[in-house]
């Protein structure tokens, strides 16, 4: 027996461990640093433009008169419509796939495709939206066309998140319900869905957080650059926060770049509120088994 085969080499192993820890620390430190630089830079440029007036005024060619009212309202409309379209479609599809669909090659094919769709670049959805919603359905360059496009964009994520939430509901619950004579629909309606809802809502809000920052597909379907009125119906032309930011950064005057920074802060706050909402919903209604 060769006891020499085993060398404890404790110092070396500890050193390797310490190095690995440092590498991890540097990675997190680096990302935090970049984020901090970005936030500080944006805050330094934009903070002094922030005021209630900034939120309540329409865009203008004169920086002192410019605001983001039409962009904020456009974004709110857009989120409301996108949620209204993608929630029933996404949850419906997830319920079908999880609860009703037979496990065969077709379902597996569908499943793989949904996963793939989640990775398609957003501009592709823009092209699709332009062809289908703007031209074919004749929605024009309206809020509705934009929301339908964004709904398509977030659908894969909504479906997958909802499926995961449905999967997490223990099957003992379904069996108990069947055992008491409930039909499949009654079981889903009264037991499975309420139990899965926190997870579904979290997925929904997170996908809306993605949609609110989307610019490319909306530019593709023709969101407009200068809008100085509030949309009053889903068929109205629109602008949204990211487009207003993009438009201001492409102006030559430096004041507009600062205004864009101000609008970025507003967008970040809206995002933060949405994500906080997702966490609160989850914590409030989550049940553990």
């Amino acid at each position, binding site marked *: 027996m060769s006891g020499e085969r085993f060398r404890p080499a404790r110092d070396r192993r500890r050193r390797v461990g310490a190095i690995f820890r440092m590498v991890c620390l540097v990675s997190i430190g680096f990302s935090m640093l970049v984020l901090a630089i970005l936030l500080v830079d944006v805050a330094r440029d934009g903070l002094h433009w922030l005021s209630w007036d900034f939120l309540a005024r*329409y*865009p*203008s*060619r004169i920086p002192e008169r410019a605001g983001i*009212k039409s962009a904020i*309202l456009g974004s*709110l*409309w857009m*989120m*409301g*419509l996108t*949620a*209204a379209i993608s*929630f029933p479609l996404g949850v419906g599809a997830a319920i079908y796939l999880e609860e009703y669909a037979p496990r065969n090659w077709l379902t597996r094919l569908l499943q793989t495709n949904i996963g793939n769709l989640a990775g398609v670049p957003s501009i592709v959805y823009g092209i699709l939206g332009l062809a289908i919603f703007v031209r074919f359905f004749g929605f*024009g*360059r309206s809020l509705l066309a934009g929301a339908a496009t964004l709904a398509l964009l977030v659908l894969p994520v909504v479906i997958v998140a909802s499926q995961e939430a449905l999967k997490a509901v223990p099957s003992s619950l379904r069996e108990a319900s069947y055992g008491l004579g409930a039909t499949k629909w009654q079981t889903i309606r*009264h037991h499975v*869905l*309420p*139990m899965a*809802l*926190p997870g579904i*809502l979290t997925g929904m809000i997170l996908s809306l957080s993605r949609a609110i920052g989307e610019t490319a597909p909306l530019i593709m379907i*023709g969101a*407009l*650059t*200068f*809008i*100085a*009125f*509030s*949309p*009053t*119906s889903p068929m109205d*032309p629109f602008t949204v926060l990211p487009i207003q930011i993009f438009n201001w*950064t*492409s*102006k*030559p*005057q430096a004041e507009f770049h600062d205004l864009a920074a101000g609008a970025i802060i507003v967008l970040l706050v809206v995002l933060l509120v949405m994500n906080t909402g997702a966490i609160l919903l989850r914590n*409030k*209604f989550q*049940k553990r088994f």
Partner: protein
Amino acid sequence: MDAKKLTRTALVLAPLALLVAGCGGGERSGDGTGLSGMVSIDGSSTVFPISEAMAEEFQIANPGVRVIVGISGTGGGFKKFCAGETDISDASRPIKQSEMDLCAENGIEAIEIPVAWDGLTVVRNPANDWATCMTVDELARLWQPGSTIQRWNQIRPDWPDEEIVLYGPDTDSGTFDYFTAAVVGEEDASRDDYTASADDNVLVVGVEGDAGSLGYFGFAYYEESSDRLGLVAVDNGNGCVAPSRETIENGTYAPLSRPIFIYVKPDALARPEVRAFVEFYLNNATVLVPEVGYVPLAAERYEEILDW
């Protein structure tokens, strides 16, 4: 129990979002002039600042009318205009025959209205202290298709042996069409190994960051960033002329001063809100055009167009 409550919460959530968004409305009426409706404009990024200023002031004067302005390039604007999607098209060059044919196919006519002068401005990096003036011929040799000029000393032997990095507008741009026609001699004939962008600010930043760079875009953008860029005067055989409001207006900055236009369709002009907007445009051009960095036409020209 909690979960059940949540189901109901979720069911009201989506409509609620709509309701919240809907709160923005309700300010459509209550205008002084009684005009209402919508005027939609799209097209050139060069004309955009003028149309934007007009749209803003017009809506202050007529709160009942909605004016929307987009940017999709002169060519892109005509595509929408000829498809009947817009009332007014911003254009930094006259409409092409192919575009008129497209419009005619859809039964759409276009009335051309010149609104201002622009000077296409050739810019260099401020560190470049040699190319302060170039002849039209030199610019043509540099920009023509298949041009092999890669270094400054290939243009003039006494210029330094430094690489030229080129920036310019993309092919959807009227500025591109005009520059190629005026300098190279054939519309849309250009070398293609340059950084093209529809966003003039990208070009400004690009030229600013590259010591050997050269680019071109509208005068208004140069004026806003004149502290970051150097100018290249253009010699058309009569000595070097740099673009300025004077040389653009009196036409000595040739061949790169050009009129810019809006195109209106007669059907739209029959609508009172569009007619009012176009009249507002022409009545206020002498004030608003210079404010956004362009050179207005002579005041009589605007009146002539109005009378017509």
